[in-house]
């Protein structure tokens, strides 16, 4: 019961923040030089006077600012994110078409990074100073330091071009029109390279964080207490050290899970993955402001959603969090 009211309160807060973002978006487009209607229409030649007038009418651009704001917020609340005149489709539809692909890619990358990061971090920490530790930390540093797009390009070169094991781009084989299990397999094959590329970078972060966090916890008094009780070392590492060390990892994962959704631009672009990042990239080049603002809004909503999930997860992992 306490947990439920806690979640409702957090949800309410998230909605308030989201509204603030919407307002910020509203002013952002008006901060751009020139007439907002011009900006919205894009710098397309099609921006004739009648079209602009039509836009001004629709968005109430000739009305006072607070009324404009009300119209804009009203639109967002009903999930009307505007219209992309470039793509000639509603923004909401464009984003919704792309969102599943992004969630699939980032979700997979996210789980790979967490699972492997925890595993390698734990291995390094429990063998600190040995060859295994050095190998893990060096590799982690390498993955962390290498630019993502370079790893992406090199892996395409190696695994697709040279070895021919995996497809180089896209989410499905073009023109294959597969269904059922064959379709799933096809997507999975396409998923391997981008997910690993994206995942390895974040895995490097989690590996390093897990390792340092475990070493820190291993020095704490309660670990010594456990040793003085005669508890088996493997259990000490698992139950006492790892569980406590995982708390900062969860915090970081929560922050990154939100970011990763909007932040996969590079990976999606290189692998021609039909996700939000790719959409944003295109929108940016085409100066499709309505679409960009829509993506901003959806990305922020994702960040808030994952923060909320992290908060809830945290209450289960750490009893000290007071549900007030």
């Amino acid at each position, binding site marked *: 019961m306490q947990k439920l009211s806690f979640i409702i309160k957090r949800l309410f807060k998230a909605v308030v923040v989201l509204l603030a973002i919407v307002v910020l978006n509203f002013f952002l487009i008006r901060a751009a030089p020139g007439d907002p209607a011009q900006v919205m229409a894009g710098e397309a030649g099609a921006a004739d006077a009648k079209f602009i007038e039509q836009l001004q009418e629709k968005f109430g651009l000739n009305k006072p600012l607070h009324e404009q704001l009300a119209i804009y917020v009203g639109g967002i609340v009903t999930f009307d994110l505007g219209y992309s005149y470039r793509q000639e489709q509603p923004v909401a539809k464009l984003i919704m078409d792309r969102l599943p692909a992004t969630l699939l890619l980032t979700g997979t990358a996210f789980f790979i990074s967490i699972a492997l990061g925890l595993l390698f971090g734990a291995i390094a920490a429990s063998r600190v100073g040995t060859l295994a530790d050095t190998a893990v930390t060096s590799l982690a540093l390498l993955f962390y330091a290498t630019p993502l797009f370079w790893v992406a390009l090199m892996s395409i070169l190696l695994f697709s071009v040279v070895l021919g094991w995996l497809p180089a781009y896209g989410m499905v084989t073009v023109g294959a029109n597969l269904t059922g299990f064959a379709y799933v397999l096809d997507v999975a094959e396409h998923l391997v390279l981008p997910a690993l590329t994206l995942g390895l970078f974040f895995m490097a972060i989690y590996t390093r964080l897990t390792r340092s966090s475990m070493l820190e916890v291993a020095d704490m*008094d309660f670990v010594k207490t456990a040793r*003085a*009780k005669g*508890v088996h070392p493997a259990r000490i590492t698992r139950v006492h050290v790892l569980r406590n060390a995982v708390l900062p990892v969860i915090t970081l994962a929560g922050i990154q899970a939100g970011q990763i959704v909007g932040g996969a631009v590079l990976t999606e672009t290189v692998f021609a993955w039909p996700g939000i990042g790719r959409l944003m990239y295109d929108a940016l080049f085409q100066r499709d402001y309505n679409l960009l603002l829509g993506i901003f809004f959806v990305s922020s909503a994702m960040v808030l959603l994952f923060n909320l999930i992290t908060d809830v997860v945290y209450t289960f992992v750490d009893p000290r969090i007071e549900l007030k």
Partner: protein
Amino acid sequence: MAKPGKTDERRRDEVLLEVEGLSIALPQGAERAHAVEDISFTLNRNEILCVVGESGSGKSMTANAIMGLLPKPHVRPVAGSIRFEGSDLLTQSESALRKLRGSRVGMIFQEPMTALNPLMTVGKQIGEVFDAHGQIDRKERRRLILKLLDDVGLPDPEILIDTYPFRLSGGQRQRVMIAMALALEPAMLIADEPTTALDVTTQAQILELIRKLQESRNMGVMFITHDFGVVAEIADRVAVMQTGRIVELGTADEVLNDPKHDYTRRLIGAVPQFAPPERPAPAGEILLNVEGLRKTYVTSRGLFAKKREVAAAKDITFDIRRGETLGLVGESGSGKSTVGRCLVRLLDTDGGHIRFRELDFASLKGEALRAQRKHIQMVFQDPYASLNPRQKVGRIVAQGPRANGVPEEEAMARAKELLELVGLGAGALDRYPHEFSGGQRQRIGIARALALEPELLVADEPVSALDVSVQAQVLDLLDDIKKRLNLAMLFITHDLRVAAQICDRMAVMRLGEIVEYGRTHEVFNNPQHEYTKALLSAVPGRDWSIPEVALQQAHGGQSGGAPAR
């Protein structure tokens, strides 16, 4: 209380633990080659052996060596033997040692706040001991845990068993630790400063509990402490350690009342006596008058939640005369530090007056406050955290005067004088804080406070982080400076022994209120409030009076001048 007759009758001569010629090597580049060098002692079944010494004497190392918990491989035993119940622990395998730990030997630690896993319930943590040493069925295990919680005097075991440690107080957590250490009825308990982090009344309860359990279970207890008051309270026999060696070993009565070794005498002589000397009534004019001071902490718990209010100071009234030391005495959370911080205006008050001479000090603001701050200066508790590690000592001391417009050269010259006044010499000017020991740093802190020529000094637990011999020196220094410069001092402390020795008058605080206020010897000899009585009767070793030989030794040693550490 060292009662020789009782000790002899209680001791059973069966040896439980026999440490012989033990040496523990430290890694290269450490302060000294051995943490512990060639020490030998025995612990009998059914007795409490106190191992006492100052920080760095090697007492905790000895305990960890017995438990096989030394930080391997850097620190390892290199000579000697530790015989426990017939076998040498140093030659045992790690898994054999693990079987002993928790079942035959239990251990409790200094910091109850961190010694329990924050993510596990109390019951699970105790249950782990049973699981580590063989299977018992869940029902039986729960019954045993409940009984243990009850044995160590915890209320509502049924609720407590499923509670997480963060809901317990320090004293309760230490009781849980004891329950855990004693779960399998070990023959030996090693207690490493188990009451040092606790308030005095809680300490008294824990000491009593350890004594009671030791007697009812016929355990041998190795009790490590730095506090001779605790030794006097609980020890059957005593081993005194100095830089890795045992310098004196004997019954509690012998060591406490007739110490033979110079070091023991010096240590005991430095323990502040419990009986306060009768001091003349302070005659100076009233410098500071506090009336009805209030301070409430309000913690916001989010936008919509109700705010939580804690009254740290309620209606505090006292005054201090020039040349007088007023003690503000209380346990943790009593609000004594809050009052001190309000006086130096690190905190703003919520009500009441602070009159300093003619000034309404509590209502000063901005430039006016800045100009007057120099009159009231503070000495902090932690000599390590209270000095900026990146600044040279000369700069630290001169900073106050510089901020008040004194020219650089003059301020540095003054800093030099002050460092000499606190016994450090001009050489300290160009060195960094980390080059000094704890006691020396506290002297720097005092010099810094004096640099602004204050009329009132607020000293917040200035000696509680220091070893007893250093503590005595710093107390002497504070007293000496107060007399020489005719200062008024507010001395905040939790330690009644210290208060007895340095305060002319004292105010006893509890939950934000002053419950007793009067001249120190009168409060000690004739306490009026129940809480004061409870505090006084909880002071460990209060019936023990420090022997004359020790007092002489301490005074003789001190005229040598140079600080010991």
